[in-house]
């Protein structure tokens, strides 16, 4: 029988729901909080802020991270900023507008109630961070400064240079450190969660691997919170950190937590291109470059061929032979179309053979025109640090003059290409951020809740901190309220022993494959399959082919993997192998979801479903729901689809238009 999902969205008008919820939820009295333990896995924005806040309230928190310090979590790499509906600029912003922009930006595939709550608590986040000593940018009068970001008509983004994620994470890490000092948080660094322990149908602990000793350890608690980030590294090359993985989330999926909307993956258009098959990760160049840079490829195929062979340079191609394809296709928005549109257009040109580097997978981003117009000083003022970063990586300085022809100066153009950046899909959670396993919660990028099919810039930081500081610490109490009557569970219970044994057996299985291929070589192959068949432009045939290849790859992994060393002590390759096992399953989930979703929306583009001009075509009649996937007891069985219908009470669903 198909399961039915209860999103537990409170009754009442959308703007009142969160207030209503807080007014009537169950609370835990201070004495009982001392008896309750919570495990938080992950120390990024969501994990660190949740661990700190829960500890301040009086709960005992066990906090885990895979790195050597909580401060390394990949939230640290976010550049742009964080949105909030403060309306400090007096430009007409409001909670409603932030809510509306986020739902629309998500292509009408997010829950209204969740997004409204997100917009509502956004202002508290800024207050909280300032009080922690986060050095946000300020105006000369001493007030906080703002800038604009895509998908909004107001200036609502708060920022700390190009290092906003770093500063927000260090703020949360500070608060976490304070609670470690108070003894309320016990911190476990270089530990990885390998499985969740279920007792009487509830999440009651985890099995974690001490990555230094290689030993498995048992931890018991009254609730488990995973804050373990997204699954972008399924594609091998992404802007994610090398250690980012989806093992905790996928293991929860195997234990019965449903995975929602896995096909919603965000591809960022302005990354430094792949330079060869030895590349390990992709570096993002800020989206702001598209304000003054013009994107182009050659008009003539022979020019593209010469560029690929290295016999011609970009600056040698005269103006009339350049195809500014975004300006050509989208005259109204030009180079500033949204991320998904810009990414697909670049892929389309490169697929036709017009790519401009040795791999044929790059387009030019050219500042010649704006340097002529504004002068190099002005352009360096705006983008100097990005030009330096680009030069450090590629040895090309986009602010350097290459030649002068007919009185026109040509500068060395940048090369860019789209890359996997963020995953909107993730573990299904209800309004309380609880998964389909009672007592198991998921927060931050690892859940699916707030971004629909596409995330707007500067919203990821907002969601991570909203979940961790202001949502979960409330909603988890509604669950914990009647848990204090139970004594602490001993980790000697058979459920703990059985789960640990299963993990151990799985590690032995991987160690004993003793095949010929390294983890990375299989992971790269996974990345190729995902990018080719489950990437930017998806088709029914491509996805079916992709699924077939993924199954074959899993077989290759199961029979031909080689892990050097032993399971005792530190073994980096073993840990990577465990991640890869779960990336492969996650890849299949993305493909299943993409195959079933016969429409194009946000980050999910099905080539069969586009308008005559090549724009995404949504199908609200048939796909206005959250696609949730339920594990069927084995990696070999196809997961089962369960639908959570969306219900919009105040927003009118419309088509997005960027042409005029």
């Amino acid at each position, binding site marked *: 029988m198909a399961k039915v999902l209860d999103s537990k969205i409170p009754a009442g008008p959308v703007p009142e729901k969160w207030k209503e919820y807080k007014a009537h939820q169950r609370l835990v009295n201070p004495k009982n909080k001392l008896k309750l333990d919570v495990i938080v896995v992950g120390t990024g924005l969501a994990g660190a802020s949740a661990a*700190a*806040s829960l500890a*301040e309230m009086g709960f005992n928190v066990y906090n885990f991270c895979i*790195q*050597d*310090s909580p*401060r*390394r979590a*990949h939230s*640290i*790499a976010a550049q742009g900023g964080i949105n909030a509906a*403060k309306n400090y600029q007096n430009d007409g912003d409001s909670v409603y507008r932030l809510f509306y922009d986020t739902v629309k930006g998500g292509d009408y595939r997010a829950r209204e109630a969740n997004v409204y709550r997100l917009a509502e608590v956004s202002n*508290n986040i800024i*207050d*909280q*961070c*300032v*009080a*922690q*000593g986060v*050095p*946000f940018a*300020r105006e000369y009068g*001493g*007030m906080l400064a703002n800038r604009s970001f895509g998908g909004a008509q107001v200036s609502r983004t708060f920022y*700390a*240079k190009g*290092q906003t994620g*770093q*500063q927000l994470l260090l703020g949360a*890490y*500070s*608060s976490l*450190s*304070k609670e*470690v000092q108070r003894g309320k948080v016990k911190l476990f*660094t270089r530990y990885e969660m390998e499985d969740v322990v279920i007792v009487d149908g509830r999440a009651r602990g985890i099995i974690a691997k001490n990555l230094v000793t290689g030993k498995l350890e048992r931890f018991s608690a009254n609730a488990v919170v995973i804050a373990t980030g997204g699954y972008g590294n399924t594609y091998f090359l992404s802007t994610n*950190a090398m250690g980012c993985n989806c093992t905790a989330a996928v293991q929860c999926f195997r234990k019965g937590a449903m995975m929602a909307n896995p096909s919603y993956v965000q591809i960022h258009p302005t990354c430094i291109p792949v*330079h*060869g098959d*030895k*590349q*390990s*990760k992709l*570096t*993002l160049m800020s989206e702001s470059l598209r304000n003054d840079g013009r994107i182009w490829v050659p008009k003539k195929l022979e020019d593209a061929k010469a560029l690929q062979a*290295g016999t011609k340079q970009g600056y040698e191609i005269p103006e009339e032979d350049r195809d500014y394809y975004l300006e050509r296709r989208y005259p109204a928005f030009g180079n500033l179309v949204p991320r998904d549109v810009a990414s697909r257009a670049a892929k389309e040109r490169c697929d036709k053979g017009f790519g401009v580097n*040795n791999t044929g997978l790059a387009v030019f981003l050219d500042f010649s025109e704006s340097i002529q117009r504004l002068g190099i000083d002005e352009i360096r003022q705006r983008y100097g640090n990005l030009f330096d970063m680009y030069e*450090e*990586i590629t*040895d090309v300085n986009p602010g350097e003059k290459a030649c002068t022809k007919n009185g026109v100066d040509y500068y060395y153009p940048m090369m860019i290409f789209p890359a996997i950046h963020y995953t909107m899909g993730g573990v299904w959670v209800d309004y309380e951020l609880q998964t389909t396993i009672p007592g198991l919660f998921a927060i931050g990028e690892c859940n699916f809740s707030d971004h629909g099919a596409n995330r707007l810039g500067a919203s990821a930081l907002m969601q991570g901190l909203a979940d961790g*500081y*202001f949502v979960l610490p409330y909603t988890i109490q509604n669950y914990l309220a009647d848990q204090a009557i139970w004594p602490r569970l001993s980790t000697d219970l058979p459920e703990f022993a059985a789960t640990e044994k299963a993990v151990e057996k799985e590690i032995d299985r991987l160690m004993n494959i003793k095949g010929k291929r390294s983890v*990375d*070589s299989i992971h790269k192959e996974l990345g190729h399959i995902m990018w080719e068949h489950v990437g930017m432009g998806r088709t029914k045939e491509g996805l079916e082919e992709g699924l077939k290849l993924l199954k074959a790859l899993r077989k290759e992994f199961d029979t031909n993997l*080689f892990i*050097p060393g032993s399971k005792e*002590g*530190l073994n980096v*390759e073993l840990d990577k192998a465990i991640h890869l096992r779960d990336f492969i399953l996650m890849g299949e989930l993305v493909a299943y979801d993409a195959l079933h979703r016969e429409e194009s929306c946000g980050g999910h583009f099905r080539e069969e479903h586009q308008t005559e001009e090549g724009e995404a075509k949504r199908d609200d009649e048939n796909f206005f729901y959250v696609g949730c996937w339920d594990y069927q007891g084995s990696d070999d069985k196809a997961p089962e689809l369960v639908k959570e219908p969306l219900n919009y009470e105040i927003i009118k669903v419309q088509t997005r238009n960027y042409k005029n």
Partner: protein
Amino acid sequence: MAKNISVTIKFWKQNGPKDKGHFDTHELKNIPDDTSFLEALDIMNEELINEGKEPFVFDHDCREGICGMCSLYINGTPHGKTERGATTCQLYMRRFKDGETITVEPWRSAGFPVIKDCMVDRNAFDKIMQAGGYTSVRTGQAQDANAILIPKEDADEAMDCASCIGCGACVAACKNGSAMLFVSSKVSQLALLPQGRVEAAKRAKAMVAKMDELGFGNCTNTRACEAVCPKCETISNIARLNREFICAKLAD
């Protein structure tokens, strides 16, 4: 256009903190010089694994110079030599000559014991942070973010101090193994802002005491730390920390 170079990697192998450790070497042939240094190490590890050997272990994560995880001592310099401040992961093969031998060692400091090969234990930095690197505000207590005005100059300076990524290059470069640049950056950031000013004296004392307790040495103004800091933190932070510390001690 990228050209290919061949180099010899001379890398430190050490099986745990008690092992004596030794150097191994590996020849890397025809590496495109637009490969990052860490990618070259990936290639080396892939070759080692294909020979059935265990890979060379080192810390790394974001590979875009912000997480502070990467920590290699390359040819005698923490993070290797570049023109502007950069982390190990931002170092590219074009910085090396064809035929060169590149020596790779861990951070060597009493405060950072080796876990394996070039992976070291930097928990001491977390402990120093826990001693006082925060404002004692609880979630939900904050007033409106614009209620206290902060001069732009102060906010900008605090931001520069806050850019520290906690990599530990300063400690690795210092002949005394001092963590003063790390500690002073956090103390300075918070002391410059009204929100952190309230606890500034207490913080300076607590963090310095913890640093001493954990076996880090003291500062003798050789400026080796600032020369290698990938985020260009300056020793004027240390001067500020000393002021805060002395004032706090005098008040006792």
